[in-house]
């Protein structure tokens, strides 16, 4: 694999909060065009992993490179400018801004701002319900629509890599299926995706590869189809 195809690479990354360490020597990579999943139980460090990549917290040690440049010491707003967008856990829309204002905020970085009208139009094309509700306050959307809006807001920055933290959490089962359909559609649009999920079954159906994270370390990694058949994964996560 030629080196320039590698989008994101983590080497021996450790991170934590205060005296608590949540991640231990994580090695991980995501190549251009891939969809990669991170699965694991509650408290395994999945959200911390997302936060450390997007610059919300700094790694204690190790290096994070993205598209050839080191982003390990950058702050969140600088990481966005390098082409990483992060859909946070629980969507975190700005509830008292309209849907359109939420999308506008997503295109805050200068490069994205210059193409605002075009980006808005393409998001409305990708997610027609958002166009209908563009002037509605984001807090009044249904759970599924909010997830749509949160993904669209992240895509507004024109990312090379989309991070998604538990997109199916807290949604009704029918809506969960819709969300995974959304992820599938984003993939076909050509975005590179790193997705963290507790819904192991759902995520393994939409990604190419996955990592299994347990208590801050990578336990297992492989192609989605392999993991689905893996004895340990089947017993512990798929209930088979």
């Amino acid at each position, binding site marked *: 694999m030629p080196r320039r195809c590698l989008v994101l690479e983590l080497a021996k990354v450790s991170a934590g909060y205060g005296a608590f360490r949540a991640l231990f020597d994580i090695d991980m990579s995501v190549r251009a065009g891939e969809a990669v999943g991170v699965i694991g139980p509650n408290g395994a460090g999945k959200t911390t992993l997302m936060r450390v990549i997007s610059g919300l917290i700094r790694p204690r040690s190790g290096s994070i490179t993205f598209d050839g440049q080191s982003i390990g010491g950058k702050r969140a707003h600088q990481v966005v400018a390098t082409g990483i*967008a992060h859909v946070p856990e629980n969507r975190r829309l700005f509830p*008292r801004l309209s849907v359109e204002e939420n999308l506008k*905020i997503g295109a805050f970085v200068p490069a994205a701002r210059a193409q605002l009208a075009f980006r808005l139009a393409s998001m409305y094309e990708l997610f027609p319900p958002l166009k209908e509700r563009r002037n509605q306050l984001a807090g009044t959307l249904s759970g599924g629509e909010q997830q749509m809006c949160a993904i669209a*807001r992240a895509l507004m920055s024109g990312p090379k890599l989309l991070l998604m933290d538990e997109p199916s959490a807290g949604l009704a089962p029918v809506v969960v299926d819709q969300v995974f359909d959304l992820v599938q559609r984003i993939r076909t649009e050509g975005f590179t995706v790193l997705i963290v999920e507790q819904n192991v079954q759902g995520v393994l159906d939409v990604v190419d590869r996955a990592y299994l994270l347990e208590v801050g370390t990578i336990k297992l990694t492989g192609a989605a189809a392999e993991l689905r058949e893996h004895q340990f994964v089947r017993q512990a996560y798929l209930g088979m």
Partner: protein
Amino acid sequence: MDIFLVEAMVNGLLLGGVFALLALGLNLIFGVIDVVWIAYTELMMAGMYAMFWLYAKYHWPFLAAAAAAIAVVAVLGLLTHFLIIGPILDAPPINQLLATGGLLFFLQSFATLLFSTEFRNIGVRLPTLEVAGMFISVARLLAFGVSLIGVGCLYAFLKRTYWGVAIRAIAQDRQIIGLMGIDQRRVYGMTSAIGGALAGLAGCLLVLQYDVHPFIGLSFGPILFMICVLGGLGNMLGGLAAAFIVSEIIAVGGFYVSIDLSYVLAFVVFIGLMFWRPRGVFTR
């Protein structure tokens, strides 16, 4: 209705304009940065002194002096944030209150040192209009009109510009604002400068009605905080409404009893309303 009562009500309305402006500034800072600037009316006092100095002493044209005074207080707002609030941004709120309270005494003492405790007047005499038997001061009318324009400009800024939307967004969720590519520190700096500029504008308007002295902030501060708490801290629309309610209570109370007792009345009403809605009358 008694013409003097109407006159009192009109004056209350006009007073409310400046309070609305100040309440907006304080609420903006609280909503975005989550700190209360106890020294806010002392920043306003600094604006009044800047006006006095530039206009009365150095004979700058009025508008140029006003623009400079607003700029000076905007810079003071920036300094307040980066020198005082910045280092203790994550400290408990009581520490932030004490720090800006310290700034209050610092600014009062500094003004005393520079200008002594003497009352200073910039020497502009604006006429009084007689409308339908009522006497209305042009200075108050001007303060009211310009305050409303200031409020309108801020509204347009928050509603229509990228940074304005960012300021509203950060007031709703500060933790993820970085994920939008927005530098939180820059938004805080901008908010502090705007908050300072609003206090400066209020100072420019009030210096036409009142003599400036180092303790003038204390004549406005307590009422201002009462207004902000009544409207719900951080709630800009609530603050606007509360500014007019409190000013009317003071003006109409002053008409029926006396101006001193009307402040007591305003605080009694305030305490009563706080029992009814402790988090602010206009809090959702």
